[in-house]
């Protein structure tokens, strides 16, 4: 339909835009950080004498400012901005904080690793911070147009980051594989969106939800559309059967990038997936805090099967790995399975479980990767066979690593246990017994391979060898701090509970 440019409505929309801009301060700060990196590199870092420092300061300052802005907006009323393009609610703010904290740890882990040439750091940080902007938009998008753009934003930046090691065939191969599988999955996602648009005549999830409930469309077409969307997003979070790219990419990418990939984009994928399912499919006429879903189809069963397959294949894949990066890659697939288990409950309590799990995973997994990076600096290897007896060489670091492994297994009292506790509690409350049983068996399998690492570190004798460097001071103190967080927050704690429960608030446009 032709719109005539009516000056009155144009002014109204300009006013709305300016008001909306005030609501997305964290995103704007991250955007400015991207520009600041480019400009600082251009004007303040000259010639060949490139050194570490200024760029890291810019990124950390930007992330810190964005964190403060996120915290300031956390308690605000859930609201839609830019029409219904995106929403700002405690859920999105919480995930923004997860991405920003992951980036801070990512910067530190890059600083202590020699995998990324200092001369390449400005491009590297531009891509990383750019992808963070994409993730923040992913966590708050409620329109298929902005969802797709933000997903592509993260993907395109990730493809280059995976291949960031100069002259390393593995890294280039990882990058290429990522591009090929990633573009197919984007196409699948988009095709699913085209079906949804055809069925509802709108790209806004909030409006589409109302149309779906008013018209009750042909179930097969809706199922087809949603299976495609879930498959497209499933590629991005590496859930079975769309996981096969993950171990290769995670092994080939530089270690700090792998660490970042296993946490931040996955959290963004889960934020998007849960927001998408709830916003599009929950019944608009029921009271808040209790969701029912479009009849005809059994969504919990569909997601539950994916969850069971993902955690089982991830854990069995991890059993035989001797490369730490591959082991943690498979373990991250298994953890995706546990989070999907929470997604499959499709309830506010399930959402709370996702939030706690992702926060726990952020701390313990990035902690484990920090130790892997530090050990790589010392031994020049990420192979498990070179981990023998390192407890005698770097006792504090190994203690921290054991804490992370303990928490990744999900034993009490640790953050990992808290995450698993909420997931299982909600699954059992909804009486999805088969899924809870599969989850329990998987936790036991995970125990085996995590403790194989701990055993090598602590109980094997230290071999004589050539060291390639020293353990970075920063790595030891940072990983001990993260280990402390893992244990302290592992005890149920009123304020933590309050913040995470509040974060499970979604804006659904009702």
């Amino acid at each position, binding site marked *: *339909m*032709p*719109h005539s*440019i009516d000056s009155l*409505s*144009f002014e109204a*929309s*300009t006013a709305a*835009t300016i008001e*909306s801009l005030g609501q997305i301060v964290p995103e704007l700060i991250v*955007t400015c950080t*991207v520009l600041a990196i*480019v400009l600082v590199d251009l004007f303040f870092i000259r010639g060949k004498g490139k050194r570490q420092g200024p760029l890291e300061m810019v990124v950390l300052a930007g992330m810190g400012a964005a964190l403060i802005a996120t915290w300031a907006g956390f308690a605000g009323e859930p609201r839609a901005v*830019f*029409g219904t*393009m*995106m929403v700002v609610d405690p859920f999105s703010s919480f995930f923004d904080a997860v991405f920003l904290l992951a980036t801070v740890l990512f910067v530190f882990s890059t600083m202590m690793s020699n995998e990324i040439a200092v001369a*390449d750091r400005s*491009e590297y940080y*531009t*891509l990383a911070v*750019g*992808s963070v*902007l*994409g993730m923040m*938009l992913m966590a708050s998008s409620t*329109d298929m*147009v*902005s969802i797709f*753009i*933000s997903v*592509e*934003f993260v993907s*395109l*930046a990730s*493809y*280059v980051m995976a*291949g*960031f090691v*100069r*002259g390393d065939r593995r890294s280039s191969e990882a990058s290429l594989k990522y591009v090929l599988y990633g573009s197919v999955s984007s196409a699948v996602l988009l095709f699913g969106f085209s*079906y949804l648009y*055809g*069925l*509802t*005549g709108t790209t806004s999830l909030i409006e589409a939800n109302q*149309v779906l409930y008013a*018209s009750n*469309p*042909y179930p*097969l*077409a809706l*199922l*087809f*559309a949603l299976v495609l969307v879930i498959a497209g997003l499933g590629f991005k979070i590496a859930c079975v059967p769309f996981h096969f790219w993950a171990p290769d990419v995670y092994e080939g990418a530089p270690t700090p990038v792998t660490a970042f990939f296993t946490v931040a984009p996955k959290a963004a994928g889960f934020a998007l997936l849960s927001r998408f399912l709830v916003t599009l499919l929950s019944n608009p006429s029921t009271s808040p805090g209790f969701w029912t879903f479009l009849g005809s189809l059994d969504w919990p069963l569909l997601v539950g099967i994916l969850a069971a397959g993902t955690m089982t294949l991830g854990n069995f894949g991890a059993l035989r790995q001797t490369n730490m990066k591959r082991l943690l890659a498979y373990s991250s697939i298994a953890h995706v399975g546990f989070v999907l288990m929470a997604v499959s409950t499709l309830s506010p309590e399930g959402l709370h479980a996702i939030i706690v799990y992702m926060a726990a995973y952020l701390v313990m997994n990035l902690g484990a990767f920090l130790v892997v990076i530090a050990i790589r600096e010392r031994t020049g290897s990420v192979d498990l066979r070179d981990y023998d007896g390192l407890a005698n060489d770097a006792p504090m670091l190994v203690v921290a690593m054991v804490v992370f492994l303990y928490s990744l297994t999900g034993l009490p009292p640790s953050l990992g246990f808290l995450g698993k506790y909420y997931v299982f509690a909600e699954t059992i409350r909804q009486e999805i017994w088969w899924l809870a049983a599969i989850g329990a068996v998987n936790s036991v399998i995970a125990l085996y391979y995590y403790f194989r690492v701990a055993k090598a570190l602590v109980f094997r004798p230290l071999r004589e060898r050539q060291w390639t460097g020293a353990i970075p001071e920063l790595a030891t103190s940072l990983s001990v701090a993260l280990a402390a967080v893992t244990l302290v927050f592992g005890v149920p704690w009123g304020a933590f509970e309050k913040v995470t429960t509040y974060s499970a608030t979604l804006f659904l446009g009702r």
Partner: protein
Amino acid sequence: MSFEASIWYLVALLTLGTGAYVVFTRNIVRAAFALVFTFLGVAAMYVFLRADFLAAAQLLIYGGGITVLLLFGVMLTHRHEGMELKLDPLKALPAVAIAGGFFVAIWSAARRADWDLVAPVEPVGTSEAIGSAIMTTHLLPFEEISVLLLVVLIGALFVARRSGEEEGS
């Protein structure tokens, strides 16, 4: 069959025919050339859908820009003529089976769904509506894309520079 319908079938035949040629030929340069016609056919489809702006964009960006880049890329990377694409009929079987199953699924879903249909309209220019949408309701995605392009350009520069240096060393 009306005049418009017969033209439509002609365009559909062109698009599918050249598309199939792209998939089945063994010569990569010919495939790239055939792709030009596929893109042109898709542009014509947009015209039938009364999406004039999209048709022009398809023509300029895909019919013109992308294919020229593709051809340059193919010709510059394979200096020796005769880079043959492998087509193994045995390996193609599972692919055909999956694609066939997918087609049946699309077909049965599409045929019975109640699509949100729009009555055919007289052809009117859509550029104005698109322009005002980009500046009002869809301002956010538009700006997202501008930041995305900056980040992607920097990434592309990095990749290009790196492979250049590798060749030099």
